[in-house]
């Protein structure tokens, strides 16, 4: 009973001091933050700040050297990616990984089969998700024929189809035109508001970060340098410095 209680009150995601080194180089160092239920949190920072590595540590693609990761209070540190998916985390890849020879619909069906054995049920569910992401008119096309913006949408659709509690989005706006960014922002916001989907995103498009996120965590050189509301973070001198430093490079 106490376990359930803890799960009910725990944040959706708690990252507690995770660290990871590659050949002595510290890619991520003692990073901690929380993502509240129904929250939208953005992870930002200059290139090479360790954002994608942090994602990989959460999603099980890599095992952290130090620290723990908790989903609704449950320790999921170092679980295999498929176990993490079953635990309730869906992720997208920065470099999109569509199942190229399969149709767009079949791509999403694969995701939807996470929760059901029944292909028919998975197909009905994926139809809804395709409509939500505006991909329904392309359902029959092979995934390799999609344009980059559509591939990004497909990544989101596939992750959503696994019915996650928490969605990890790795630069889904990068490479989109401003109008498409607005559309993706609107989609994600309505998803968050209507279904209560918790979202953690890595994003370079600041417009999207400002419009979407409730809370922002800033990484630089593998360490968290600050966190706060979008307004607080953008006026923080440390953040300005690390971005300016990046520009100067």
């Amino acid at each position: 009973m106490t376990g359930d209680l803890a799960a009910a009150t725990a944040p959706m995601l708690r990252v507690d001091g995770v660290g990871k080194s590659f050949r002595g180089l510290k890619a991520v160092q003692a990073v901690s933050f929380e993502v509240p239920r129904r929250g939208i949190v953005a992870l930002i920072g200059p290139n090479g700040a360790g954002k994608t590595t942090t994602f990989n540590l959460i999603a099980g693609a890599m095992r952290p050297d130090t620290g723990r990761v908790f989903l609704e209070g449950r320790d999921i540190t170092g679980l295999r990616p498929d176990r993490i998916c079953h635990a309730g985390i869906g992720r997208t890849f920065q470099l999109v990984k569509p199942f190229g020879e399969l149709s767009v619909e079949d791509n999403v069906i694969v995701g939807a089969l996470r929760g059901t054995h029944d292909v028919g049920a998975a197909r009905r569910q994926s139809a809804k998700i395709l409509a939500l992401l505006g991909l329904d008119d392309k359902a029959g096309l092979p995934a390799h024929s999609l344009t980059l913006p559509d591939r990004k949408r497909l990544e989101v659709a596939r992750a959503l189809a696994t019915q996650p509690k928490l969605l990890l989005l790795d630069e889904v706006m990068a490479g989109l035109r401003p109008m498409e960014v607005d559309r993706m922002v609107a989609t994600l916001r309505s998803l968050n508001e209507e279904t209560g989907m918790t979202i953690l995103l890595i994003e370079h498009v600041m417009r999207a970060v400002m419009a979407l996120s409730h809370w922002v965590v800033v990484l630089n050189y593998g360490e968290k340098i600050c966190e706060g509301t979008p307004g607080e973070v953008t006026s923080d001198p440390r953040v300005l410095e690390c971005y300016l430093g990046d520009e100067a490079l």
Partner: protein
Amino acid sequence: MSGVSENRVLAGSPSTGEAARGGLIADVPRRALILLGLFAALLLVAPATVGDYLLSVMILVLYYAYLGLAWNVMMGFAGQFSLGHALYIGLGGYTAGALFVHYGLPPWFGMVVGAAVAAVMGGVIGALGFRFGVKGVYFALLTIAFAEFTRILFDHWGWVGASSGLYLPVEYRDTDDLWLLRGSATMFYYVILAMTAGAFILCHWLLQRRVGYYWQAIREDQEAAQTLGIDVFRYKMIAVMLSAAMTAIGGVFYAFYYNNLYPETIFSMHRSIELMLGVIIGGIGTLFGPILGAIVLTTLGEMLTGLTEDLGLDGIKQMSYGVALLVIIVYRPGGLWPWLRRRLGLEKPR
């Protein structure tokens, strides 16, 4: 069984029973069904109309079609490249053959045992390869190494006749004994036809199931597949073991049809190559490709052999297979079937 476990966000309302359950002939255009029916009818009546030679060629076509379908499960569906499938033909053939020769056990029993032995062997190779992260061409080399290792082992194993071979007793009789698989070519024709049809239906069914979707996802991108909750190791193991077991059953047919088994021929890498050529030429990953490929290749080989009989040109058949492979790889890497399917207007309606 609705299978929709938790009805969380965005889960479809589990409207069980009604609509789109798939089924065996879902999404297949009527034209395709008619053509398939005609093709099946043709195959069924063939022995009554063709001569001995043509019947033996058709048996060969169906044998390679069957093996191609089996190999296709592993490579075409799940994307795991095996160049050592001769191993499973040999294990199936030798298991059933030896049980028959030494204990008089019927091939149907040997089939079960042989398939199980091959599945275990496939499981061992798969488990080692996948666990140790042996990928792509390296995995193919691993499968070759196991096949060759086994070939040499059988070359020295007296119980199965070692390098001088294992012979099944041949008796000439008027009646067909289906239980012991002794009898006429016509009986063997129907046996291999049933096996091929069974493999075809099984593959079609599997592709409609979750396992089929999961295999193809793994084939396309393993990392993405795992992120979507797929236990990649488990599904690859299912593909390898199923493919091995199916191939072994083909080996049982080989043993009882040809009545002799030599390690040198049955386990050889040329066997492994031969059985996958048809699939590549017909269309890898497709359902009908292995069958089409077997028809094209066997016909080509037989015609060339027949035409050049007097010239004594050893190797012309294999040579033509090599040329066919090159032509397909260069000009139509997807194989013949996707192209033919378009020409026949059998694409799925979208």
